[in-house]
């Protein structure tokens, strides 16, 4: 399987503190991957680097079948190239309706002039409704998203991510604040999505990771400590020491 994303020997320091240390990571075009690791392991920073928010001090980040470096691209360009991101805290535009949030995310030209001329077609509206349905927000389309519950905001954000139709999805701690039923729905959705695209899920919750039933990468102090099936990594002595043993 060819890699869709390849991170090679990336390092980044904040005020002398090495948050990411010679990290290498690769994921295929249609693959689900869980990334686990203790707090401060650098999981969020890893996503920041891939999405262009943080520039690494050294290393290479390549994306696509014909590998292109993401390091010279802006956040918006990376997003348009097909990298979608779900944040740890749900971040939706709280002053706007669920419909407007999803409509903004819908994969369409992004420049100011094309957006100024944009008129939502019937199929655009239908698509928004489908997406809302998919994440269980169809009855709430006209509500201001600030009024939604925490879990619903998570769903809205996932819906927006789907609307972007990314080829690589980075999902930071999706299960946080979700009920058991919602978690099951989330795992089901993520596994389904990973059939057609690459999905990287950062998660703390071992039960959740077990349900994802996929390859696991363990991060520790900014580099990969172990990689393999969940049973394989949880049997690793170093992993037990730094993570599970605590």
């Amino acid at each position, binding site marked *: 399987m060819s890699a869709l994303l390849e991170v090679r020997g990336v390092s980044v320091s904040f005020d002398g503190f090495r948050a990411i240390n010679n990290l290498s990571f690769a994921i295929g075009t249609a693959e689900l991957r869980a990334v686990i690791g203790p707090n401060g392991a650098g999981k969020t920073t890893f996503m920041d680097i891939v*999405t262009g*928010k943080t520039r690494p001090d050294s290393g290479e980040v390549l994306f696509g079948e014909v590998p292109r470096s993401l390091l010279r691209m*802006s*956040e*918006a*360009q990376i*997003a*348009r190239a097909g990298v*979608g*991101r779900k*944040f740890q805290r749900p*971040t939706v*535009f*709280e*002053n*706007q309706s669920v419909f*407007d949030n999803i*409509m*903004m*995310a819908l994969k369409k030209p*992004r*420049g*100011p*002039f094309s*957006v*100024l001329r*944009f*008129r*939502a077609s019937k199929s655009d509206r239908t698509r928004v409704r489908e997406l809302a349905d998919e994440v269980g927000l169809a009855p709430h389309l006209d509500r201001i998203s600030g009024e939604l519950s925490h879990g619903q905001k998570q769903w809205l954000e996932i819906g*927006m991510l789907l609307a*972007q139709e990314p080829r690589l999805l980075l999902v930071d701690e999706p299960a946080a604040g979700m009920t058991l039923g919602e978690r099951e729905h989330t795992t089901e959705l993520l596994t389904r999505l990973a059939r057609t695209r690459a999905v990287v899920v950062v998660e703390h919750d071992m039960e959740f990771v077990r349900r994802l039933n996929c390859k696991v990468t363990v991060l520790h102090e900014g580099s990969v400590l172990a990689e393999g099936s969940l049973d394989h990594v949880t049997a690793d002595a170093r992993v037990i020491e730094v993570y599970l043993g605590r």
Partner: protein
Amino acid sequence: MRHPSVLIFLSCLALFTVAVTVMAQAGMVSTSFVKTLGMTLCLCLVALAMDLIWGYAGILSLGHFAFFGLGGYMIGMWLMYARTEGIVVQSLAGSPLPATPEEIRQGIGTQIFGVVGGSDIPWVWSFAHSLPLQLLLVVLVPGLLALVFGWLAFRSRVTGVYLSILTQAMTLALALYLFQNDSGLRGNNGLSGLQNIPGVTAGQDRVSVWLLWASALALGLGYILCSIMVSGKFGSVIRAIRDDEQRVRFLGYPVEGYKLFVFTLTAIIAAIAGALYYPQAGIINPTELMPIASIYLAVWVAIGGRGRLYGAVIGAAVVSLLSSWFTGGRAPSIPLGFYTINWVDWWQVLLGLTFVLVTLLAPGGIGALFGRGR
């Protein structure tokens, strides 16, 4: 949601303009009051621009009066040049030989730049003889300034207070430059006699009504344009940028491009407002571009209610009219026995207090009284 409010606004504006016209014809309102009202409409237009950039896109520019002033200077140059040309040509007509173009230029130069001890026409006046060209400059000069300034500022991701300070620095620098005699725009004298439209023989009573109509038309068109911009997906995106610009980047939108677009467009709207304002004011000088003017603009919009187009208009109209009433010496002083409240001095205090109270207690401003914002 947008259509009824636009229609209501346009109807009110049309009604107002017709009413003032009728009253002016009937001699019920003075020419100078018609001018004040026309100028107020121009201030409403620049407030609309301020609301778009601040209330909707979340960029607190404290420099938009620089664009307003520049617009005024650009039209002022033609007004002054063409009128002086007329005077010079007339006075030379008495001489036996027909005046050469060189003599006419000389005459114009002496007339306009005598006050700053010169008689040469500076290069910045190269197009001042032509109304179409100078009208083009009304849009181009402030537009290009905004484009370059905005490109530099937004590209380096200057935001929040830092951007506000930068815009203040811009308007201050421009004002200080214009204050210099060798800026080519008559230093602190500014441009004057702008109320006399070259080639127009009608009296000021007529001209003031025409300019009122022109200002009302510009405000109406500006309102339609702004309401198109803030509704629909474009409005969604700029409000999203206001609320969380990083998140908008991760959706793939070129945030800097949007900011630059809105910044430049609002600068052009401000410039057009200025170009209509100063022929009614009659005079423009660099004081108009001092940082305080742009701060007042933000105060109007805050009091009127940002994030609502009609809020900005109401704020600008109410505050600027009250301001001219209080500072015009017509407001009765309040004797307290031990102290007399003289409104010319105390108006600023009242305005400042209102601003603080509105910010603290009614962030929606006056506009919030009329309905829900977005």
